């Protein structure tokens, strides 16, 4: 699991960990049932406070992205769960929101935008099938 922590854009570190693990899980680069590194191990690898990693894991657990099993270990939840699906939809919604905002700023109309999306979809078809 490769995470990248940056202190140059102001986003709290626990949130960077949460967002990146959510993204990895939603894109299935973290498979359901896969074990996450222990808090201490990840803290030493990322060089961040272990309390920060613990906070991120708690948030991920609350969001249903990961689950604690027995006393030891944190595992990626089953991605078929409604919570995981909600998470994927949320990532897409964020993307769509920024796309709509940019289209608006650039004076691209809704009709033009949908046409453009259709075009891009066709153009990407071979790639998607791969």
């Amino acid at each position, binding site marked *: 699991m490769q995470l990248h922590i940056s*202190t140059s*854009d102001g986003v709290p570190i626990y949130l960077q960990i949460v967002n990146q693990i959510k993204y990895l899980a939603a894109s299935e680069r973290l498979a359901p049932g896969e074990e996450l590194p222990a808090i201490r191990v990840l803290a*030493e690898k990322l*060089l961040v406070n*272990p309390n920060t990693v*613990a906070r991120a894991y708690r948030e991920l657990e609350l969001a249903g992205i990961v689950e604690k099993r027995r006393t030891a270990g944190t595992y990626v939840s089953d991605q078929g769960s409604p919570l995981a699906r909600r998470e994927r939809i949320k990532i897409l919604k964020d993307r769509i929101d920024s796309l709509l905002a940019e289209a608006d700023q650039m004076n691209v109309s809704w009709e033009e935008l949908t046409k453009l999306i259709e075009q891009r979809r066709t153009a990407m078809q071979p790639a998607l099938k791969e």
Partner: protein
Amino acid sequence: MNAPYPSLAPPIVELHRVTRRFGATTALEDVSLTVPRGGVFGLIGGNGAGKTTLIKHVLGLLKPHAGAVRVFGLDPVEHPVGVLGRIGYLSEERDLPDWMRVNELMRYTQAFFPHWDPGYAEELREAFDLDPRAKIKSLSRGQRARCGLLAALAHRPELLVLDEPSSGLDPVVRRDILGAIIRTIADEGRTVLFSSHLLDEVERVADQVAIIHQGRILLTAPMEELKQTHRRVTLRLEQAVDAPPALVGAIACSGEGAEWTYICSGEGAQVRRAAEAIGAAVVGDDALTLDEIYVSRVQA
């Protein structure tokens, strides 16, 4: 690590209204500070802000002219043995006896600390790639820092005190130092107090932050709270003005015409309400880095 933080246990370090002068210069003025057990406390400030003077009071090397210092509940000046034996300390100068060899320093330091762990010391020596036969005088800057770190860590101190540990070091040695801080608090109940002007390091590892400037503590807060309550908010006014309208919670402001950017502290909702009240639209609202928070506080 999973225990609640800040812990309910009595604080490790307490400074109560400490004042210290050197001749006509006031190095610390009415400084109060509480370092809770079991976390990383970051002390940030520029050169000459009073960081080292404050740390020397914690170690009992300086006596306050007014106020009181307690470490593990004891006065460190009156109980040097009871206090220093439980502290691991790395100074910015890393004053080590130059004429000793690494293995001699290890034996020598061991004599001062009843809880010295020879196995752990050896483990650290190997991890830091220190030649036991090497003269300390001959060590590079980075190896010297690692040697000092070994001496500070091998008795598994309850409190690790680091004064500008990363200053002048390359990124590889800085990683070792950050790693040592993280391992120290991951072992339950232990505490780190460190001073630094490298704010990205502080942002990574500190639970709690104090900003010291010209001998005074400007602010003490949990890192999370500090990040949550400081934002950069940009407002767009209905028409251009010459001076920015006053905004509740604003620490600093820059801009021109109809667009003004404020550094604000306080609840996000409060800032938005204040903006609405003066008929302005919030067009930007971003989190700040610790660096930006520090600069805005010191310049305010």
